[in-house]
């Protein structure tokens, strides 16, 4: 019994989240019989990983007390650069062999992820070396990345990705949607990194008390730089999934993901002031919110009202957290 109560105490956020998810699930199943169809869950398994990975990126930035407002810009720019590569640099040839297609695909993935790495490095340098506050630095770079995306595309979406790229976003492996598999691998890797490596532990320490971390001999600037690089790479992976699933890349795709990623991170128990956050929390939070929004879509709520619900949910979660903090 004591074991149960101590488990409940240390995992309070997780338990609370699971309860929220169950309530959402039951309410939606009750509200619409169509909610429980297999097709609905399968389509969620294709869409949710994008938001899930962007939210993990956001959580990592929040661990050090920062925020990354450029994630959506990075995601779009990565997808667009991959598209430009497919169309202009290494176009499809009629007699293309399988090897050619494979090299093309690999290079495009590398280009997209290096875009994320470079973008994240820029964020990290601005924040850790020039000491710009994360909000303004990533607000500016986000605008910059979106700007480059507009310049590259001239406005309209880039289309014409090869089938292999589409497979990343729409394919199935052994009956399981590929985006879901990618998300699971990423989530496990990041979870391991945060809890079992010195990098992860140091990040949490910096977020909890930056001054103490300096006195403990941690090189804060370098850790912060690394965390934004990681966040950038994750954002570019979300960009790959997004452009793969829709077979297009555009400068203003997924703009609503920014608010949702902040919401998912905060709902998942991440402390925006730093020091606390977990991949498990983010994963359950993204599940709850995707169930919620698909339920409302099935109930034919307009997208505007769904935006309202996301916002209201964010404020409600903040209120709940504040209430709990007061009780302590």
């Amino acid at each position, binding site marked *: 019994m004591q074991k149960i109560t101590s488990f409940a105490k240390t995992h309070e956020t997780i338990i609370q989240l699971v309860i929220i998810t169950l309530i959402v699930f039951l309410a939606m199943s009750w509200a619409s019989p169509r909610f429980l169809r297999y097709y609905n869950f399968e389509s969620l398994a294709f869409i949710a990983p994008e938001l899930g990975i962007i939210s993990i990126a956001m959580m990592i930035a929040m661990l050090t007390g920062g*925020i990354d407002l450029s994630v959506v810009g990075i995601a779009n720019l990565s997808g667009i650069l991959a598209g430009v590569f497919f169309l202009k640099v290494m176009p499809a040839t009629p007699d293309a062999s399988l090897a050619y297609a494979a090299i093309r695909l690999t290079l495009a993935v590398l280009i997209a992820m290096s875009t994320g790495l470079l973008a994240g490095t820029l964020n990290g340098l*601005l924040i850790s070396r*020039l*000491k*710009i*506050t994360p*909000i*303004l*630095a990533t*607000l*500016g*770079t*986000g*605008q*910059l*990345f*979106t*700007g*480059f995306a*507009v*310049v590259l595309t*001239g*406005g309209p979406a880039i289309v014409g990705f090869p089938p292999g790229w589409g497979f990343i976003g729409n394919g199935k492996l052994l009956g399981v949607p590929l985006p879901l598999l990618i998300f699971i691998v990423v989530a496990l890797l990041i979870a391991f990194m945060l809890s079992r490596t010195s990098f992860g532990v140091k990040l949490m320490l910096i977020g909890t008390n930056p001054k103490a971390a300096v006195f403990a001999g941690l090189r804060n600037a370098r850790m912060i730089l690394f965390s934004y690089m990681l966040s950038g790479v994750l954002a570019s992976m979300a960009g790959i999934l997004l452009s793969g699933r829709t077979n297009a890349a555009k400068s203003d795709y997924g703009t609503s993901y*920014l*608010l949702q990623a*902040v*919401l998912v991170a*905060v709902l998942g128990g991440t402390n*925006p*002031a730093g020091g606390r956050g977990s991949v498990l929390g983010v994963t359950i939070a993204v599940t709850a919110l995707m169930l919620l929004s698909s339920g409302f879509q099935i109930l034919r*709520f*307009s997208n*505007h*009202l*769904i*935006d*309202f*619900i*996301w*916002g*209201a949910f*964010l*404020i409600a979660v*903040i*209120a709940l*957290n*504040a209430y709990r*903090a007061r009780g302590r």
Partner: protein
Amino acid sequence: MKRLLARSEVVIALILILAMIIIGLINPAFWNLENLFSLLRQNVVIGIMALGVLTVMISGGIDVSFPAFAVAAMYLTVRAMVGLGYEGVILPFIAATLIGLLLGLMNAFFIRTFKMIPLIVTLGTASIVRGLLNGVVGTSIVNIDRMPQSLIAFGRTVINLGGASLTVMLFIYLALAILVHLFLTRTMLGRSIYAYGGDPESASRVGFDTRKTIFVVYALAGALAGFAGLLHSSMSWLANPRDFIGLELDVIAAVVLGGASIFGGRGSVIGTLLGVFMLVMVKNSLIILGIETTWQLVAVGLIIIVATALTALRDRKKLGA
């Protein structure tokens, strides 16, 4: 001389003059009175919103919800006027300002009660207000044929100077700027905003009612946004409920460019006026300079980054000294 150069406003003004000379050399059309007046006209709406954002940033916070508040105040007021067949100017502007003010109070309430980072709260309230406005009230544009004639007539008021027409709205903007300047520098409440932005704990120990400070800051930002929203509608002769998307970036860029520090405690109305003018000028001069407009976002992004890097450097020097 050295003390003069140490003031951010002087530095910004010098950069501004330099930029104007360069742009004028590349394309002399820049110095046309009509071009300058058109630039000033575009300062009005962004500038009034920037006065609110400046106040928020002096208090150490940030607000990304004001474009949503502005659009809500504008659209609700215009729709009400159309619905009631009301023609007038003063009452609608009071209504729009009040709507903005109430929404601003909502921000302050959440920020203060839940002790939450203003960015996250205002992201949430922006989504709530826009979602409700477009989901419940609607998304249809009130066009010029249905717009209240009184508002259009008001927005068209101009004076003729040297053969070109200058909008009278500019003087409303400048009057508001003077009022905000006096409020920030000459009243106890205004000083408390600087004190709170410098260090909330000390501000409350010195005896400032910090709760009141927060409410005043966000209410003012909301009220200015509401006013600017209706002014925009009256100057553009239509009310589009999807207007102002992404405008927060331009306004924040302008305020940062004007020397305000996001760490709080620093910033001035004069700097903000200069920052707004600089931003509008750069964005508009891209066309004059023969650069494609697709580069606008890149330009604004670079402005935010460079300006914040410079203020961060300045603040660090000050702290070190």
